[in-house]
């Protein structure tokens, strides 16, 4: 299975980098994350040698950039009919789903890694806690993976990439917002506190917030990894359902 998944990953990665999609995405990601860090986040005004202002915008950046990456994963294959080629080759749906996801993840991590000058900058300006920054990068990559897995599933639901984008953005938005007071108040008004607490446990924002501040709690990492596993599993089910009788 690993061999087939690797072949799919290689094909997909080639697909990203042989078209302008990859470069447009990376440039926009870098421009936006830079602008948000310096202008909105007040990188200099804070007077701290940390990347807190950089990481704090990631959930919001990912909210619309990741669905844009994920929307084509399956919708495009269905639209062009190449899914018929893929599904009649001797490889399992799981290998396909994994292969595609890993390629998209590698691509997003590449974009994330391209922000390294920022890391160098804070080290030149002061003495930041590099462990915290590293944790922030790991957390950001994991969160991107969770967003991508959601997007992968939403892309499998439809053959229309715009619909896939909107669905993914909405679901990701719900997961991001789950922990905010705004959502919690609404939930508390209707459901018992236990429900509200459970829902807030699914909040990307809260989980990522802790990780990016350097509090690397095993539970948060497990949360993102299991989010990825769950949504990829859902993708396999959705893809297979289209072919089932």
């Amino acid at each position, binding site marked *: 299975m690993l061999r087939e998944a690797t072949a799919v990953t*290689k094909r997909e990665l080639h697909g990203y980098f042989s078209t302008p999609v990859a470069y447009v995405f990376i440039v926009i990601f870098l421009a936006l994350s830079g602008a948000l860090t310096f202008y909105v986040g007040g990188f200099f005004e804070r007077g701290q040698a940390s990347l807190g202002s950089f990481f704090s915008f990631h959930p919001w950046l990912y909210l619309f950039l990741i669905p844009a990456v994920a929307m084509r994963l399956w919708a495009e294959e269905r639209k062009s*009919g190449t899914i018929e080629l893929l599904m009649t080759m*001797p490889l399992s749906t799981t290998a396909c789903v994994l292969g595609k996801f890993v390629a998209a993840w590698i691509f997003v991590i590449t974009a994330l890694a391209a922000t390294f000058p920022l890391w160098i900058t804070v080290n030149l300006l002061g003495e930041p806690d590099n462990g915290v920054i590293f944790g922030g990068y790991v957390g950001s990559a994991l969160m991107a993976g969770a967003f991508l897995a959601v997007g992968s599933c939403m892309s499998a639901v439809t053959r229309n990439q715009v619909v896939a984008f909107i669905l993914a953005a909405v679901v990701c938005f719900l997961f991001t917002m789950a922990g905010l007071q705004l959502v919690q108040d609404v939930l508390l008004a209707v459901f018992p506190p236990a429900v509200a607490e459970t829902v807030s446990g699914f909040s990307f924002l809260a989980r990522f917030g802790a990780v990016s501040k350097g509090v690397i709690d095993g539970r948060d990492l497990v949360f993102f990894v299991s989010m990825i596993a769950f949504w990829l599993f859902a993708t396999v089910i959705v893809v297979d359902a289209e072919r089932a009788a």
Partner: protein
Amino acid sequence: MIALDRLCRTFGPVIAVDGVTLAVGKGEVLGFLGPNGAGKTTTMRMIAGFLQPTRGRAEVCGFDLARQPIEAKRRIGYLPEGAPLYGDMTARRFLGFTAEVRGFDSTERRRLLDRVVAMVDLDEVLDRPIETLSKGFKRRVGLAQALLHDPPVLILDEPTDGLDPNQKHLVRELIRGMAQEKAIIVSTHILEEVEAVCTRAVIIAEGRVIADGTAEDLLRRLPGHNAVVMTVPATQAVATETALQAFSRGGPSSVTWSTAEGMVTYRLATQDGRGAPMSEVASLLHAAGVRFEALRTERGRLDDVFRMLTTGTEASHAA
């Protein structure tokens, strides 16, 4: 090598395939015919393992598509309808990807690529992105993908659709060349293709097999099959008619005629489709002293069989 057992597939309330039972062995090229929407593509998709059947079973080389899909798919080469391809890849990369998924190492990949490129004549476009290729080349890349791993079973959904006559000829030659050692199913709308490459033809309509046999078997179903057509000078029309009446007494037959430029053309057809032996007609005319200008047998056309079987209730009763 291909065995279908009461294969059914429904899409919601629509019954696309309704109990297709077929067996295709090595050396057979099965022509899969039927009107649009008859269930050809759905059936082929089930054999290729893209769709799961609602009921029934499909088996390839002894592997059940439902239980051992991967093993079965290893042995199938499949050209989907319209030959969808990854347009952003070059043909070389795409074929390399297919070989990699199928588990061939890099030296084998190179060998298989060289072999298939020579087979379908792809050399000149190998390094161009697929989306920039002409329709004929795209179709050839699709074929190359299906033939790459030299599978014992080939499922080709309209392989010559949209190709020019030269390209069609090339594809037919290719199929004919491989026929000996493979089991092949080819769907097509072009009935001459069936006579050109297929050892057997199956007509399906509304998801059911309504005819199964060689092209000759199918032609025999035509009322006018093997009719004898003769052209005689108008002056000898009376003598001819009298002579043909003698034949008519031998069995049920019908005579139609037409006149042009001082010549009369008669068409003598028997109802049972066995036809009137040409030699018999010739000696009858000879005995009557008729000097015919032309005498020939009409086999009829597969198009007519197809129309007869796929339209009208009478046709389906006959089947």
